């Protein structure tokens, strides 16, 4: 049995999902030989510490840790002080400066802790440095959950398709935009109406600009370019057009000719723009789904699709990353 002490930083929607999933999968993980112990949960109000593992039921009902915190430690201070093998970083993303996640990841990696994250910001701002920091400290940095949520993409390319040359990846990487475009096309309703519907359903934020202006998709394009294509690019290198200018009439004209209009991110072209996609293309998925077409030299085009967001779904991608860290030596290394 491998004992692994895990600390969680960030207790928002995804943080709750992580606590829930780790608790639900405890038995499965033990059967696998992995004894994951969630020794701390930290948010902007404080930290819950528990050497024998945080009681999920006790904290899942709380929106923040304000009422249940056992320590006032926050952020980097908590990361350095708490003895753990792996940190899960799920604080809110910031694509401009990457904070606070960037500082958290630097502290964890320099302290010899593996990092698993769904937080795009630090990776968009500083992928190269973080990667090097991980290598220098002999630990891993895993971030499957940052792109396409639960849809397998990074591990699919890095592991399953290893040996192929990847010529490009194009896809739908934002469920909010896809939902809005799908509803506009189905009902012929204007953008503003579809947006307010998405906001009522909790699919879009009160300030939707991050999604609808293509910022989120561009961040994912940067992560894919840097991690899978060995590029060294920044957010400003991506040519971005969002979906706010798309009209129901444009969708109808396209549909009549056999096309859907989707917000497509393209690597290595580094573009994000509304694009005509043939209706019968496997990447022309509807609703909040994400999809990606991976163009390879040996395997042709591989298409994946799945839920791009959601508390439990994102936590699932995080769980997969955690397991893969401890499985690495068994199945993936060349001896």
């Amino acid at each position: 049995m491998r004992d692994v002490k895990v600390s969680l930083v960030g207790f928002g929607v995804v943080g709750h999902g992580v606590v829930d999933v780790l608790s639900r999968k405890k038995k499965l993980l033990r059967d696998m030989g992995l004894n994951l112990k969630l020794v701390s949960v930290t948010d902007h109000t404080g930290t819950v510490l528990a050497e024998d593992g945080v009681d999920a039921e006790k904290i899942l009902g709380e929106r923040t840790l304000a009422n249940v915190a056992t320590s006032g430690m926050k952020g980097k201070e908590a990361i350095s002080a708490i003895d753990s093998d792996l940190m899960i970083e799920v604080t809110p993303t910031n694509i401009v400066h990457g904070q606070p996640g960037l500082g958290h990841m630097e502290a964890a990696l320099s302290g010899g802790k593996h990092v698993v994250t769904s937080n795009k910001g630090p990776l968009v701002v500083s992928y190269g440095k973080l990667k090097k920091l991980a290598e220098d400290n002999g630990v891993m940095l895993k971030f499957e959950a940052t792109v396409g949520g639960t849809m397998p993409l990074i591990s699919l390319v890095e592991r399953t398709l290893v040996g192929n040359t990847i010529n490009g990846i194009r896809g739908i990487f934002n469920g909010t935009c896809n939902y809005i475009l799908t509803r506009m096309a189905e009902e012929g309703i204007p953008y503003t109406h579809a947006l307010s519907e998405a906001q009522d359903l909790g699919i879009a934020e009160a300030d939707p600009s991050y999604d609808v202006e293509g910022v989120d998709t561009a961040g994912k394009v940067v992560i894919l370019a840097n991690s899978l294509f060995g590029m060294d690019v920044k957010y400003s290198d991506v040519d971005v057009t969002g979906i706010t200018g798309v009209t129901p009439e444009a969708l109808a004209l396209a549909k009549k000719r056999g096309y859907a209009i989707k917000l497509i991110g393209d690597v290595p072209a580094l573009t994000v723009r509304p694009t005509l996609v043939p209706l019968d293309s496997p990447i022309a998925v509807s609703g909040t789904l994400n999809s990606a077409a991976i163009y390879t030299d040996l395997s042709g085009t591989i298409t994946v699709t799945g839920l791009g967001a959601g508390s439990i779904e994102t936590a699932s991608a995080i769980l997969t990353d955690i397991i893969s860290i401890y499985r690495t030596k068994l199945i993936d290394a060349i001896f």
Partner: protein
Amino acid sequence: MRLSMDLELQDIPGQLLLALQPLKENKANIISVVHHRDHKTPRGMIPVRFVVEMDQSKIEQVKTKLRESGILVVRAGEDRFIEAVSVVLVGHVLDSDLGDTVSRIDSTGFAEVMDLALTMPGVNEPSSAYLKIRATGKNEIQKALTILREVGREKKLLVIEPIEAEAV
């Protein structure tokens, strides 16, 4: 040079072979032959379309030879536009001089707008247009799209291009 030829043959045996003879003599490489025996013209002739790769200077010789054999040459010439692409434009498509937008493509000589559909929901609202552009080759399609992108920037139009089938 890729050429296409529309011919009309008499409905008697051996005519297709007769039509092929001058093509063979002038070293034309046949790309396709469309022969619809049951789609006769009002005069009772059978229409046939050949697409061939051949030296353009030989075309007149071929036409003369065909006519001598009693074959009607309806049209023969360069088959220029072999690639097509769909694009959707959104914005003040009409007010920003749609005629100019179209002629920027048409004036290239290697591409032209072959289909256009326009939807205008209201006076001050953005309109949407569907354009089908054809061009002499894949590179020319890309050049036409580049022009359209420039026009889009200039006229503040959202240019929605098709996803390419394969990554380059």
